[in-house]
């Protein structure tokens, strides 16, 4: 492991320690034994079965994190991914059940519908931003609530499966051609044993591909350069010839399109679902915001954050029997997030200062004393006059 990698771990690890301390204090206040609680949590996750379940649960969280990270990278805060994925999952689930296609076409078809629906919903916010200067945070959150109402309406009025009784509001189950088989066979072929009744869902490869695609787009493509540029310094982006309106439209559409896929692991790979209904998981979009922030908008970081989050959720599930409220998991995750974003900022400032000092040393600058005099501009990554307005954040 390189030193750089280890140094990057300092902030999240100290945040984790702080989160454990905070949660322990909360447990102590509630009169519970934190040591016992954490021991029980460890027991819960210490099995192949648990690890598999954690990975299964982490996949949608991961997609959710990537979805918002795309926007975050250019300071475009799409906080309405929740509505985008619910609407996308509903329509994709319905459309997927309505058509019959061979698997090689059916799977891409469901993907396409979900991405187009999610992307289009986010595009409304983008259009309002570029034409009417409406703040993206506000419009995406309003559209989020509208999507929740709209999807409930569509489900009960139009897309409901009438044949399977009217009691539960849900769409028709998608045919096998639209389902993704579990990956057990693949791993067992390598001699890995999952144990009874445990399935590693088949969406994992798509999630990995998504992460790689996101990385390449961001770091190797001209579009990714323009995106990061718009996020770091929108004015420089503008005078370098980037069209900010086009960037807002494309980026929000992409963010929404990826958000549209958040529900697909359940829809396509989870045998409990294969359909959209009242039981469909909600709130994954909001969690994704936290995952993206924890993972610092970086694909590997987001993956790690998704696994940590899923682990916390899993670990705290069975605390009830020992008298510890499972809600401690939400404190654990929430405080971890808050401390982590602070720790990242502190680490960033330290590194920036160190980099400045190192550069001054290395160049043996004649004007070593030049320092922080008003006009040199050295030493602050935010530039001498911080006037950054987030792209799409103008109101």
């Amino acid at each position, binding site marked *: 492991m390189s030193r750089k990698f280890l140094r990057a771990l300092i902030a999240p690890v100290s945040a984790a320690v702080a989160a454990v301390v905070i949660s322990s204090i909360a447990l102590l206040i*509630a009169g519970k034994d934190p040591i016992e609680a954490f021991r029980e949590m460890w027991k819960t996750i210490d099995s192949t079965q648990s690890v598999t379940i954690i990975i299964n649960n982490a996949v949608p969280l991961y997609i959710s994190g990537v979805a918002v990270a795309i926007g975050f990278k250019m300071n475009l805060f799409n906080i309405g991914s929740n509505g985008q994925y619910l609407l996308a999952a509903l329509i994709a689930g319905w459309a997927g059940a309505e058509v019959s296609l061979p698997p090689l076409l059916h799977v891409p078809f469901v993907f396409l519908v979900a991405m187009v629906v999610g992307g289009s919903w986010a595009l409304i916010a983008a259009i309002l931003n570029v034409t*009417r200067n409406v703040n993206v945070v506000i419009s995406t959150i309003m559209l989020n609530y509208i999507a929740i109402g709209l999807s409930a309406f569509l489900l*009960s009025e139009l897309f409901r499966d009438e044949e399977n009784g009217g009691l539960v509001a849900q769409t028709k189950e998608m045919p096998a051609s639209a389902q993704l088989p579990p990956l057990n066979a693949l791993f067992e072929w390598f001699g890995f044993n999952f144990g009874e009744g445990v399935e590693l869902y088949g969406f994992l490869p798509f999630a990995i591909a998504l992460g790689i695609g996101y990385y390449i787009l961001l770091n190797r493509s001209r579009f990714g350069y323009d995106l990061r540029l718009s996020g770091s310094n929108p004015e420089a982006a503008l005078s370098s010839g980037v069209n900010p309106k086009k960037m807002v439209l494309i980026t929000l559409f992409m963010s929404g399109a990826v958000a549209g896929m958040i529900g697909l692991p359940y829809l396509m790979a989870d045998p409990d679902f294969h359909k959209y209904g009242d039981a469909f998981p909600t709130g994954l979009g909001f969690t994704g*915001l936290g995952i993206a922030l924890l993972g610092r908008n970086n694909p590997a970081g987001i993956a790690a954050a998704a696994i940590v989050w899923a682990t916390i959720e899993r670990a705290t599930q069975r605390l009830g029997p020992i008298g510890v409220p499972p*809600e*401690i998991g*939400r404190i654990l995750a929430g405080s971890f997030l808050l401390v982590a974003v602070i720790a990242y*900022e502190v680490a960033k400032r330290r590194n920036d200062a160190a980099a400045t000092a190192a550069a001054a040393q290395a160049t043996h600058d004649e004007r070593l004393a030049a320092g922080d005099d*008003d006009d040199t501009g050295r030493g602050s990554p935010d530039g001498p006059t911080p*006037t950054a307005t987030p792209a799409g954040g103008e109101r």
Partner: protein
Amino acid sequence: MSVIIPNEEEANADPVVRAWHERPHWRIFLWTVVGVAVMSTARLLSGNDDLTSSGTFGVALRTAAPVALAGLSGLVAERSGTINIGIEGMMVMGTIFAGWWGWEFGPWMAIVGGIFGGILGGLLMSLATTTFGVNHIVAGVAINLLAPGVARFMANELFTDVQGGSVTSSPGNSGDIGEFTVPFLSGGELFGWTTPNIMEWLEDTGWFMIADVAGFVLGVTSEVSWDVILTVGLFFGIAYLLWSTPLGLRLRFAGERPSAADSLGVNVHLMRYTGMAISGGLAGMGGAVLVLFANRYQEDQVAGRGFLGLATMIFGNWMPLGTAAGAGLFGYAQGITLRTNPGELVRALVLAAALGLLVVLAWIVYTQNWRAVVPMTAITLVTFWAYFAATEPNNQLVFVTPYVVTLIAVSVGAQRLRPPAEEGIPWFKGMQ
């Protein structure tokens, strides 16, 4: 040392002579009258008296209050330099504490508890944004994710073993906060004597425009709960604080030009903390108002009102009056969804919107703004079509009305917005 040569054309220019209808106060009055006329026409055409009834306005005021407080919370935060996306979370903190103290100690303590919980959230966020310089939106998102967890944990500890309580709900407040009715105007009591209710009489006549205004006045002056009155008072209080006290000037400088404040010895970080404490307190009180309305803490009862508050603040261009107006609009939109026949009311509101668009269209033609005619005609026709073609929306669609109205409001609202110049930018000593 006169330095800039005065611009002569500018200095000698005659004050622009404006037509009477272009003078600001006349304009506002004129459009208010037109608005009342449109609503009244829609009421008469749809035959739905509830569109402008005192009952509707009463509920509207009630539902507007928490959003208004959230908007005011955002206003104080942003004026003092912090973009507060965490209002939602601070309101959640407010609801849990209000639910707890309201149940233990009564409704007034619910308000105190709500403010306390909100301040906790505000200070926590300020720790991240002010002291550590975390991106304000990132910190706000973190607060919004943390607060429901804290609330649920607390609810689990406090309410699960109590009669009538559960992890998602408090047992209920002990006692009612009470309400106030204005004498004469709305038949309030004066020294034990029930005064005549003039507005009610006027409303019952059903007269064009007069009944609607009477409905409005009656709605906002009768049986107004004390927490709502307190909310209205806070608008005046905060406006006074920001624009008429030294502290207010310093708070605003923390948002407009922190370096200038620092260069004159004003402690910028203290100002930003103060702003966030006030902001958190107002948000928390918004949560308390929700708890008082529902008479108990309920999980997820904030339901996006923090964000709605932010939207109303932007709609109001970072000014208290505009924020209050935005909240009123939202409150009305939500208020009608809580009446007995919301679907019908929403439809009547669409009719009112169509009529309003017709008036705007007429105005556009009158002022010969030909470029706007085609799109405006299209929008007007679509709205009329929506009214005639669509049947009564069901409950799920009615639920989205306030959010749609808010989204439309911020889209068509003033485009020349003026947020505080340096809000959202972490500030540290030595920065320019």
